[in-house]
């Protein structure tokens, strides 16, 4: 019985580690990404749009993202600590970093075909 508990505890620890990314919680980051409306300008896939930059797999580190969100240089709203804490932004950053890498345009047959017309 004790062995079973140890195995279960181990599985839980593995799960927690997988959800953490450099001190950011991916699952909570996803929840906050949706709650705080990041998707509105940046898209559900972080793909970017007319109104917001591509942020999937952001090249920023967590501190860089926090710095930008507090003092954006473009037209993005500035999110104060009261609205999104540093930890919450770190979680969002972890979620963005967890997004699967995008295919290259040349690897998508339809896009490749359109481009080469």
């Amino acid at each position, binding site marked *: 019985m004790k062995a079973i508990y140890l195995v279960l505890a181990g599985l839980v620890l593995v799960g927690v580690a997988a959800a953490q990314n450099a001190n950011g919680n991916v699952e909570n980051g996803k929840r906050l990404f949706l709650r705080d409306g990041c998707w509105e300008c940046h898209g*559900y896939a972080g*793909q970017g*749009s007319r109104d917001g930059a591509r942020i999937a797999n952001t090249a920023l580190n967590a501190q860089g993202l926090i710095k930008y969100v507090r003092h954006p240089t473009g*037209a993005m709203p500035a999110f104060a600590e009261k609205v999104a804490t540093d930890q919450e932004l770190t979680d969002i950053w972890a979620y963005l970093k967890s997004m699967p890498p995008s*295919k290259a345009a040349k690897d998508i047959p339809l*896009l490749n075909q359109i481009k080469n017309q």
Partner: protein
Amino acid sequence: MAKAKSRFGRRGFLKGAAAGAAALVAKPAAVKAQETAQARPAAPLPSPRQVAFETGQPPARVDVYTTDRPGADFMVDVLKSLNFDYIFANPGSSFRGLQESFINYGGNKAPEWITCCHEESSVAMAHGYFKIEGKPILTMAHGTVGLQHASMALYNAYGDRVPVYLILGNEQEINFRRSDVEWAHSVQDAASMVRDYTKWDDSPVSLGHFAESAVRAYKIMMTPPYEPVVICANGQLQEEPMSQEDRRTLKIPKLVVPTPPAGDPNAVAELAKMLVNAENPVIVAGRAARNEEGMKLLTELAETLQAPVQDRRMRMTIPSRNPLYNSGNTAEADVILGLEVPDFWYVSHAQTPINRMGMETRSTVKPGTKLATITCSDLFSRSNYQDFGRYADVDLAIAADAQATLPSLIEACKKLITPDRKRAIEARGKRLADQWKRNRDRDFEAAAVGWDASPVSTARMAAELWNQVRHEDWSLVSDLTFVSWWPQRLWDFDKYYHFIGGHGAYGIGYGAPAAVGAALANKKHGRLTVNIQCDGDLNYAPGVLWTAAHHNIPLLSVMHNNRAYHQEQMFLEDMAARASRGVENAHIGTAIKNPNINYATMAKAYGMYSAGPIENPNDFGPALKAAIEVVKKGEPALIDLVTQPR
């Protein structure tokens, strides 16, 4: 004119020979005999019948029930002379006389009556039709409640420099208002409500007056800048019979549409010198081209100078795969030429973004950059509505129609290009071509991100659409702002009818009806009309789907169903972030969810082929293929695609 006219003119009779007849009858017989003997031949005695008419009981009223020539018939003759293809209207009692004359006396041909479910739809359909066909549409509405519905669409047309010919029914003569309804539907000055955003109006009081004003209105409307006009059609004039005199004398004035004003030759020569000697000239094009010829001329100017064309996305400018399209940079320009750009100030300035407090402006161009404009907006202004934009502090302003000025500008530029300038111009062209290619590569890489996402990305939507329509003679008739301009980044736009711009004054509700109007114009040319339909826009007046189905207007609509008034949702989030609170509440009052609207079901209810809602991007291509087959048979079709916000 309800009573029959007597063969005897009462007043004329009394003024003439029988002035003393009444007294004669009242006098004693002896006096009467004496006076009769002395009667002068110049004043013949009235006949017994005349005497009875003047002195007896008034004759019984003779009701006239019918006429073979109501005034509306003449109005129809006048309006037919203006060569309208269609009438777009929701029916209204104040113009029932005209409607009857159009469909019976006029044979419901040239123009043909198209049934609309909302006056806003009527005007917006006319807006879309004009931008494809270059011909204005006749629309009709009540002078009161109908115009109130139509007014936003009219403002959009005004902002977009589009002519719309609007007839307003009204009952000016109080004795002809038959009920409280007609009192409620009558107005002293019908056009006053929209006078701030129309070019001209009149309320004729006779048929002759109507003829002259109707033709004048058309002429004013079609002289650049194009703008809507309003003519009030008095109900009494429509419904009462034409007088015999009117039948003999009324004529329809001759219409001659003025040639568009071209720029002053000296100013054009000065502009050519600025452009040819510039190291980095940039052309910013708004509504510069009015038709295919305008697009060719604009392309010729750009290629002559190898100057990039920054597209303000109001009309087609130059082909999207021309390396000069949207390449270049105004920040590096030494000369910027604005062609029919209503917001030219923003070409050279930026303001504090919405995410910061206070407001400052800064120049976004180099010191010393020369600014020049050609626009017919300098020839026409209204003061109340502020669509004229901020005052642009330019170095040269040519008050003229840009397209009409382009031939002389191109010629002047070509004359000034020396071999040295030619080498510099060619080198610039190569740099810009490289930049265009880099931009294009970047766009395609951006399109790949979120390719398989659900909701479907707007880039994927645009790519799948292009894959299905590119072998057709297509026409994309929707504004592309809310889909991040993906079609213009991926598709090959090279004809004037490939893109027609947007609202004009950003009045939402334009999209669906303008697309139907544009599709009707494209129908006779056999083009496949494509509309990317925003969900919020369709919900203003979805009855236009029925109009498309009823009149067999082939139109492929793809819902951009992002389930929100998304621009407002973003603004609300901006405001919440400014106040450091509640960004998670931005959906309140802006989301269109719970329940989700099923647009495929809606389209079916209006009698249209539909598919969806589609959430898996892989299902979109096959659905498109099936829908296009329906459209190619001459019917409208709608695909409900659940999409990313932008």
